[in-house]
């Protein structure tokens, strides 16, 4: 079984690398698409090497695990390959790439490579959240169904806000404060806390933390500031440059600890830091 798994996974690696090589033959209007493909090709080659090493060691458990990794990685990467291919389409708004690259350079750490492409999904996406292999790339997909709307331009800025969130590790930093607030609130007002999160049990805190209710608290607390941050970032930039107001702007809904959000001070500090950089 492991033998067939090894050959099967090797075949998968060869096939995905061949697909990437075919895509590399395309004409790229900007270098970032080609760079991303080369990076992904390298990732799969490395996985192939690991698989061969584990196979030579006759280590069935590791072969199995690497095979799982390969399957999941292909599942993660395939839509991105399509995205990169679509980024070469002449229907894309290439004139947006340079201004967006300027904003990305101003707001992200390092040297971000911007890839602008189209989506056949109503809601636009920024990809880097789930792909560790393309950390230095910002992939922004604009919904093709909305191509006639000029408001797609500020929407691209909104997507960039998501990339900033991920790139600067704001989620992690915000999480520390949120965690502290949760513990503080629980110790001060356990009854209120329990009313919102009835499954919370301080005697078995690990189990409680895994409960859906508490997870909802964290995702709500993290998502709201992220949404706020993502929508405010293009707003500030666009206001400065006298473009148009983003139609994506919305105020966060009341959080579990009151209106308007769990951490207005935290949000203010995050936003002021970024706007200072943009002003500079």
């Amino acid at each position: 079984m492991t033998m067939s798994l090894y050959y099967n996974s090797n075949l998968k690696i060869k096939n995905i690398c061949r697909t990437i090589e075919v895509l590399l033959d395309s004409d790229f209007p900007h270098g970032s698409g080609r760079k991303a493909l080369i990076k992904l090709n390298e990732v799969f080659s490395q996985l192939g090497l690991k698989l061969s090493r584990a196979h030579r060691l006759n280590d069935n458990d590791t072969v199995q695990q690497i095979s799982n990794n390969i399957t999941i990685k292909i599942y993660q990467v395939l839509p991105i390959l399509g995205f990169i291919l679509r980024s070469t389409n002449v229907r894309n708004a290439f004139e947006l790439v340079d201004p967006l690259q300027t904003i990305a350079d101003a707001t992200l750490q390092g040297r971000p490579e911007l890839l602008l492409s189209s989506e056949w999904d109503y809601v636009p996406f920024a990809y880097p959240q789930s792909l560790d292999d393309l950390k230095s790339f910002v992939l922004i997909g604009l919904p093709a169904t909305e191509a006639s709307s000029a408001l797609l331009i500020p929407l691209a800025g909104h997507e960039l806000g998501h990339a900033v969130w991920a790139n600067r590790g704001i989620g992690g930093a915000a999480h520390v404060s949120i965690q502290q607030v949760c513990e503080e609130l629980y110790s001060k007002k356990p009854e209120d806390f329990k009313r919102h999160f009835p499954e919370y049990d301080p005697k078995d805190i690990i189990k409680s933390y895994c409960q859906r209710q508490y997870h909802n608290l964290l995702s709500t607390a993290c998502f709201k500031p992220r949404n706020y941050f993502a929508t405010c970032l293009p707003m500030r930039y666009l206001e400065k440059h006298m473009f148009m107001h983003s139609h994506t702007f919305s105020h966060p809904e009341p959080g579990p600890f009151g209106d308007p959000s769990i951490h207005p001070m935290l949000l203010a500090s995050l936003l002021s830091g970024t706007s200072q950089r943009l002003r500079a």
Partner: protein
Amino acid sequence: MSSESSDFANPIDLSIEAAIELEELKQGLRPRAPALEAFFDSIRTPGPAFEGKSLRMLDDVRAYTVFRDSLGAGARPAHTLKEFRDFIETYLSKLETGVSKGVQKDIEEAKRFCLSFNTQLMAKKMTELYDRRERDESRTFDHESIL
């Protein structure tokens, strides 16, 4: 057979590399497993963040299920977050010491932990992927009600 640990920074790749190196160590093909140290460092060290340091994996409550499920039979019920964190830190230090001394039992346990941790992280990634592709509104949309 050279260590590839320096090429990878994320715990998913590091855990796999560590598992391979531990197997090589077990079979006497290498004197030590540097990828294991790099993997444990990635768990213990906070990543870069906006104006300061981010959360280290050990302090992140979102990672507790990953740790708990990776421990397997070695898991011990904990009453507080701190207690659980201390337990994990002791567990990792014990494994590191055992592996550096070449204790077979610890090498095997460390390898099991690496593979198990990798499984949990991949499962988490898949959940994120599904969450992104199948958003809330698409799940609650009832096509029959439209007809």
